[in-house]
């Protein structure tokens, strides 16, 4: 109860302060801006309501990009982690490359991918997958490597084949770590999707924010951010739920 109540109270307090600061015009005055450029929580809420079908339409576009990207990253990342776990040579060769690949800013790659794949959903999926790939692969590999070597010896002594050792010891042992990776991926996926849409698209929440910037639709921009954040939160919640169902022994 307390675990939920305290953060909720803090959020309510912050929104309340924001409401007072904006409705009195204090923030706009301090920044020497027009009032409509600094929307209050109630204005954002009414914008959310008025634009609900537009937001829902674009949220669906972005959600699809995120989910497909995360699934691609999961498939490729898991495959890579298993291969690198199985063959030390491959790990030694590829692991530094995977880490180094993370230093390339996604902002730089996004426009190139748009040139290659066009304005459709493909470059978005690729970009989301690219940034989700790293946390999933690294955490899955860590999980696989965390297996107690004595447990593997015990399994060998109890007639387990390599395949059985993988499915009965290594894979379950790696699951908690894998879920950590997925949760991180879910958090960064919206960033990837928004960047990808900024690089070139005709729909999606990122696209909406961009076009609203040009039209000074600040209230709707905030409403879009709220939708984006809510989507990420729901996805994390769902991941945690699946984790609790799968990792039942904890």
């Amino acid at each position, binding site marked *: 109860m307390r675990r939920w109540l305290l953060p909720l109270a803090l959020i309510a307090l912050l929104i309340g302060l924001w409401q007072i600061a904006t409705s009195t015009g204090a923030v706009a005055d301090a920044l020497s801006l027009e009032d409509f450029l600094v929307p209050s929580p109630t204005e954002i809420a009414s914008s959310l309501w008025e634009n609900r079908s537009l937001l829902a339409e674009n949220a669906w576009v972005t959600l699809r990009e995120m989910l497909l990207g995360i699934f691609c990253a999961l498939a490729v990342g898991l495959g890579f982690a298993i291969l690198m776990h199985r063959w030390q040579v491959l790990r030694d060769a590829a692991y530094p490359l995977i880490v180094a690949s993370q230093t390339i800013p996604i902002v730089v790659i996004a426009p190139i991918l748009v040139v290659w794949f066009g304005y459709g959903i493909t470059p978005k999926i690729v970009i989301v997958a690219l940034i989700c790939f790293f946390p999933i692969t690294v955490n899955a590999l860590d999980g696989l490597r965390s297996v107690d070597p004595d*447990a593997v*010896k*015990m399994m060998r*002594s*109890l*007639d387990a084949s390599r395949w059985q050792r993988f499915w*009965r010891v290594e894979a379950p042992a790696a699951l908690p770590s894998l879920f950590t990776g997925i949760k991180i991926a879910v958090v960064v996926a919206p960033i990837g999707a928004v960047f990808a849409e900024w690089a070139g698209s005709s729909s999606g929440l990122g696209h909406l924010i961009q076009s609203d910037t040009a039209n000074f639709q600040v209230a709707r921009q905030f409403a879009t951010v709220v939708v984006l954040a809510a989507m990420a939160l729901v996805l994390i919640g769902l991941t945690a739920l699946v984790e609790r169902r799968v990792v039942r022994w904890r």
Partner: protein
Amino acid sequence: MRQDTRMELELGGVAHSYGDLQTLASIDLEVAPHSVIGLVGPSGCGKSTLLELVCGLADPTAGRIELGGEASAEQRLARCALMPQRDLLLPWYSAIDNAALALRNQGMRREEARAAAAALFERFGLAGFERAWPAELSGGMRQRVAFLRTLVAGKPVLALDEPFAALDAITRAEMQEWLAAALRADPRTVVLVTHDVEEALYLSDRVAVLSARPGRIVAELSAPAPRAENRDAAVTDPAFVAAREEALRALREGSR
């Protein structure tokens, strides 16, 4: 020991090194079928390594290990089951599925494997705990499940690596009595590694004392009352106390 009995386990001149570190120096040992050999020695004397070699998890650097007349690592793996130092119950399986692990690995269907393990749960005082997660079991219970898991594998030789080291003194004494009863009911050839001289003398037929690294056998003695039903009476018997003193003396001299 009758001369015409074929030995279940024979070690001849077994030595082992990890790189430059020699862990075992020339071990000779003979173990008759259905008898228990206790191995005691100071920490780091290569006791656990010796068990891994016996089980076929590795090959010795020199010497020969035969299980039932077979020397290859593969054959040893097939004939010996290891119970590692910690219970190592897999947390994602229930107690019964942990116990049935070897049968599942050998290709038995889940329900059959569970039924086979359940019969042992009944017999060895674990009835009612079949569905429990390992995390819900006490230390003694976990060791019982780990022992059953080793027993269920159906192999002639069991290699037990300090099975009760993690338990408190009272639970350990209870578990020794429990294991003695289990081995009376289902005799196997057992190699028992422990640092507890009393435990070795109570559970084994013979006890071999190993020296500090590189480990070699410095003394071999017979236990006066192997796996006696009344443990308290057995361990306070003058013959037992004398044997314990002798083993401790050998242990001290071998540690130098």
